[in-house]
Structure formats: C-alpha cells, structure tokens
C-alpha cells in the first residue's frame, strides 16, 4: 500500500473535492406565511468577488442576515469552513470569520471614527478585564499594537486624518467606508457588503470599486456584495446570483446574467 499522503495530494495529481469556505445548501427562510428565501444555494472562497442582485424585497438582505446569525434558517444548511453556523448568534459568527456592513449604515454614531474601528479589536474574554484594570505592561503593549493596527487600517481607507471626529460628522461616502473598515478590523475571511454604493455619486462609486478590489487582494477575503448599481456589479463581480421573491432565478458570469431573459423580466416586468 502507498505511504500516508500529505493532505490534499493524491497520486496521479487528482485533486480532492474542493470544499468552499462558505457553503449554503438549500437554505429556506420563512416568516410565518411569508417565504423570504427558498432553496438558496451558494458557495464562496477567499479571493472571490461575488454579487447578489434582485429587485427590492427579493430576499438579498435576508440571505445576509441568515449567514450572520440575525435570522435562523427554517431549513437548509450554512457551513463555514466545515462548521455549521446556521442559528448561531451574530457575535459568534463574526468570531468565526464573517463580517458585514448594513444596508442602512449602522455606525456607532456617538463614538469617534477611531473608536468605531477599535471596537472590532476586542478579542479576549474575562482575562482581558483583569489586565485592563491593572494595566500590566503586557496588556499595555497589546493595546498599543491594536491601536496601531487600527490607525493603519484607517489610513488604508483614507480616514486617518479624521480619527478623532465623531463618526456621524463624516460625509456619507466616508461613513460607508468607515463601516467597511470597521468590518475588516474583525479580521474576517468573508466580507458581506450590503449595498455599499447606495447614495454615492459616480466618482465615489469608482473609488469604491477600486477599494473593493484592493480589499480582496490585500486582505485575502472573499467578498459577497449586494448592490443595485448594475454597472458596478457587472464590472467587478466574477459571479452573480439573481434573486426574485426569494427564489434564485439565475447564477452566472456578468455577461450571462445580462443576457438572461428571466433576469430582464424580473427587473423590468414581463410582456405587457
């Protein structure tokens, strides 16, 4: 018999079945009589940039909410890195590597820009409390390092100059960027962006597109994007899923989606 193989390699170069980082299987979400999402399937890997589109009320944010633990799945599975995360609490899901932004920006308005990002650097549990109270040199060093990291992150997003300003005093576009920075500070492997371009002017959207690509490359995250701006979605996403009334009506590359008659019908309505 052959000697034990190193993980992932097999004789003859045949690859193991690839397991995506995030895998959603036959997900259903039902609120009473309303079926918000049915038979939803999805897969995402680090380095992916995938879009989720559909008319309003199609179930896009619901999908995000289930993955991040805000809603429980009524049926189906959500697997992250081999672990089932369906039904877990939001903070647990985040600790496992999924971060998100919100459709209506949810910044910590009464806190400064810097503090908004710093929140995400909370890692330790009770042990941290003792160190915080006594301020041991070890604790101080850790805090200083984290503060440096936070500042560096702000610099990537061009927000370092406004670090001590109230986050609600930022212009809209910068607020959206801060939200993304805050989510990235939690060191996720997957980033869910819920309509990040909403309310932005064309120039801001171009900058955002650049930024999203940069994030993907620099931080090696898988990015899943909900957007209404077709131009943006089509130009940066590798793959797009289209939802309508909770059902998946198309999955494919931007070109395939654009030519898909069902998609066109969902957005523009059928023949009169």
């Amino acid at each position, binding site marked *: 018999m052959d000697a034990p193989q190193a993980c992932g390699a097999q004789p003859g170069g045949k690859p193991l079945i690839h397991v995506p980082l995030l895998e959603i299987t036959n997900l259903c979400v039902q609120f009473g009589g309303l079926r918000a999402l049915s038979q939803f399937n999805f897969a995402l890997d680090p380095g992916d940039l995938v879009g989720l589109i559909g008319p309003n009320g199609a179930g896009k944010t619901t999908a995000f909410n289930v993955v991040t633990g805000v809603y429980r799945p009524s049926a189906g599975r959500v697997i992250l890195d081999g672990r089932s995360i369906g039904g877990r609490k939001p903070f647990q899901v985040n600790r496992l590597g999924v971060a998100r932004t919100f459709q209506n920006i949810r910044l*910590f308005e009464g806190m400064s820009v*810097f503090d908004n990002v710093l929140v995400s*650097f909370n890692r330790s549990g009770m042990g941290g409390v003792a160190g915080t109270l006594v301020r041991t040199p070890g604790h101080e060093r850790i805090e200083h390092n984290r503060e440096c990291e936070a500042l560096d992150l702000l610099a990537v997003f061009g927000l*370092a100059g406004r670090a001590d300003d109230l986050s609600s005093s930022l212009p809209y576009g910068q607020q959206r960027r801060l939200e993304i920075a805050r989510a990235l500070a939690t060191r996720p492997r997957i980033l869910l962006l819920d309509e990040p371009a909403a309310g932005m002017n064309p120039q801001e959207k171009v900058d955002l597109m650049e930024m999203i690509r940069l994030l993907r490359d620099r931080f090696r995250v898988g990015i899943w994007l909900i957007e209404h701006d077709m131009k943006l979605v089509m130009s940066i996403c590798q793959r797009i899923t289209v939802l309508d009334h909770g059902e998946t009506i198309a999955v494919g590359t931007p070109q395939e989606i654009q030519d898909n008659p069902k998609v066109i019908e969902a957005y523009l309505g059928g023949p009169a």
Partner: protein
Amino acid sequence: MTELSDRPSSRVLPAWAANFVIVLVIGTLWPVARLTASQLNPYVVQVILLIGINIVMATSLNLINGITGQFSLGHAGFAAVGAYVTGVLVNYLAAHDQLAGHEWLAMIVFLPLGGIIAAAMGLVVGIPTLRLTGDYLAIATLGFGEIIRIVITNTNRIGPLEVRGSQGLRVPVISNLFWTYLWVIICVVCVWRLVHSIKGKAFLAVREDEIAAAAMGVNTTFYKVLAFVIGAFFAGVGGGLQATGFFLIDPKGFGFMQSFLYVVMVVLGGSGSVTGVILAAIVLTWLPEQLRSLKSLHVEDLRMVTFSLLLIVMMLVRPEGLLGRRELWWTRRRLAAPSPAGNP
C-alpha cells in the same frame, strides 16, 4: 497621516506611572483623612463622607447606564443589599463584643463581602432583564429594586442575625474618610480604566447599537451583564459605606427615589463621562446641603421643588448633561459634533 503619537491619548500617564501614583495616594490617604476629620466641623466631615459615597454610587451607575446604555432604575437596591450585609455582620460582631479593636478587620472583610453579594444580586437581576430594552428594562430594574426593599422591610431576623427591617438598623460607626475615599479611588480607577481601554469601546458600542456591535464580534450579553455585576459590586460597597458611616440604616432610604437621584447624577454629569459624573455627584450632594442650612421655613420642601424644576429645565435645555460624552480635559476638537449646516 496621523501618527499614533500625535493623537491625544486617553492615557494621561503611562500605566506604570499611574499605578505608582495611585499607590502613593492611597498611602497618604490615611494621614490626610485623619487630619481633615480632626480639623473640620463634624457636620462638614459628614458631608464630605456622603459626597464620597455618592461618587461611588454615581460612578458605578454610570458604568451601567451611561457607558453601556442600560437604563437601570434599581441601583439603590444593590446598595441596600451591601448596606444590610455589612451592617448586619458588623452589628453581630458588636453585639458579641468582638468589634472593638478589630474595626479595620471588619471593614476589610465585610465591606467587600457586601459588594460581592450585591454583585451576585446583580447577576440574578441582570441575566433575565438584560434581554429587555429601554423602558421595559427601566421598570424591570425598578421592580427588582422595590422587591429588594420590600423584602428587607419585612425581614426582622435571619437566623442569629438581626435585620430589624422597617424599624431601621443601628450600626456602629466604624467607617471614616479614609475607608470611604479608599473605595472612591478604587471605584473610579476601575471604571475609568475599563472605559478608557479597548474593552471600554465594547461597552460603548453596546450602548450605541447592539446589532452592529454583535456583528463586530461583541458578545453584547456578556458586556451588559459584566457592567451590571461590576456596577452592583460597587453599589454594594457604597451601601456598606453608608451603613458603617452613618449610625442608622433604613430600607426607606434605598427606594426608588434614591435610585432616581443616582440616575440624575449620571445624566447631569453626562452619561459616559467619568469625570462629569463625579462632578455631578459632588454638586448634587453639596448643593442640597448648602440649601439645607438656609434658615427658612419649609426650605426642605422648597429644596425638592427647586430640584425637580431644575431637573425639568435641564432636560429641556441641556439633556446631554454637563460634559456630554467628554472627559473634563478633552478639548472641543475631540469628538467634534457635526456642524448645524450639515456635512462639510
């Protein structure tokens, strides 16, 4: 680009220096306290004592209400627990002639014990109620505070320990400025350090937006309960200081009115500002005492009328309190609010 060193730091001193200063202050506290007590009029000493106790009460409540945004209206209930635990135990020792000469031991053991039991109560109260929000949390905590008060009022003895409920409990006065201000220092340092740290940002985030906080990995339940437990601990200590600082304790002094007074201190100081709340506690303890000394008929009632009017006016005019979310020495630049015209 702003370097970390350019930013105004929440560290007034490097940690090792701060720790050194704290130890130094505590070291000199005993002689300073004795000197003050001997030089000043006993009534003034009592007021200073009360100020210290109220600083502890208000600061501990600030952690719960101001920093973490959980509107608790039952803080006096935790004080009651601490007061009666400490008071009853001290009394027991005194009744068996074991107290004399061992007062310092009683203070070292019974005072924190009162705090710990109050903290346990905070756990009992906190875990079920903290899933409630806003108004509901307020009345739930009010309810708990009242339950505690009613139970104490109706309790005469617990085994060999005399409680005396509604009659009030006489406790030998074994506390003084030193013990009181020792705990003031401990409480303020703890709350300050908690707030001005990365962990503190988690508390604040829970206040600002729980859903977003959870999405950023903050275990909101843990932080809420933690704030409650720590707040309750110091409230219990505050209660114990009351019991041993004044010769009589009575459940009536630990009711909703008292809880509300502490809430006013937190709001007046600016929820979330540690220094602001300390200032408010001082002002709100000292001012009524000043008014009390006015030689006028029924000034007691007018005092309360004025107080309530002041409260309403303050809410109408400056609801964010004296300092809002700033600490005393932060400049205007820090946490600059948006300009009225909108975004720059």
